[in-house]
């Protein structure tokens, strides 16, 4: 079975631009979460979606938004990019929204210049 897939793998943007990252969960998984991992740190929670509804939001500004589609894939959008947004963006999927293991994708490496 295919694991969590993310696209693109790498991305370079300039300050002020907007970016969209994409994630496809493991088949059968209905919950998708997004994390930001800055170099040398643990992943920081951004959003969780379950059955296309937002179930949780971390301490990130409104420049960050996300959505989940009927096929359970998801997009993370970041507007007005700042240098500090440079990070590895990870998507994780799980079977349900509670008491389920989360499985991570390989991430999208975003560099903001």
């Amino acid at each position: 079975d295919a694991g969590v897939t993310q696209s693109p793998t790498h991305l370079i943007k300039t300050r002020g631009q907007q970016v969209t990252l994409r994630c496809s969960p493991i088949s059968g998984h209905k919950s998708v979460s997004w994390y930001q991992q800055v170099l040398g740190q643990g992943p920081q929670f951004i959003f969780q979606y379950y059955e296309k509804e937002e179930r949780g939001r971390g301490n990130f500004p409104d420049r960050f938004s996300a959505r989940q589609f009927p096929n359970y894939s998801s997009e993370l959008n970041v507007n007005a990019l700042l240098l500090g947004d440079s990070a590895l963006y990870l998507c994780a999927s799980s079977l349900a929204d509670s008491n389920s293991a989360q499985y991570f994708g390989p991430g999208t490496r975003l560099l903001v210049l």
Partner: protein
Amino acid sequence: QQQVKQSPQSLIVQKGGISIINCAYENTAFDYFPWYQQFPGKGPALLIAIRPDVSEKKEGRFTISFNKSAKQFSLHIMDSQPGDSATYFCAASRDGNQFYFGTGTSLTVIP
């Protein structure tokens, strides 16, 4: 406030030795405690996880010890191998929702 505190930051172990990584948490509502292994340029991979109703869980060379009263849990890697060299993260969540991660431990196993 760091919800999950992890130590040590880095660890060097001889091949065949035992690697021990510790984590402490604050929120007693947490009910799921996974450990992840991450290689450079890759996403974290789930290693093993435990719930607070058991004190120990073993899967192969990996064991989680859980102390509910002390709000601590640890990962033991028995017979450590050079291929285990990676960064390890502990995490905690309530109801499988928002996961809080530790800051990571860089493990190096020397031959």
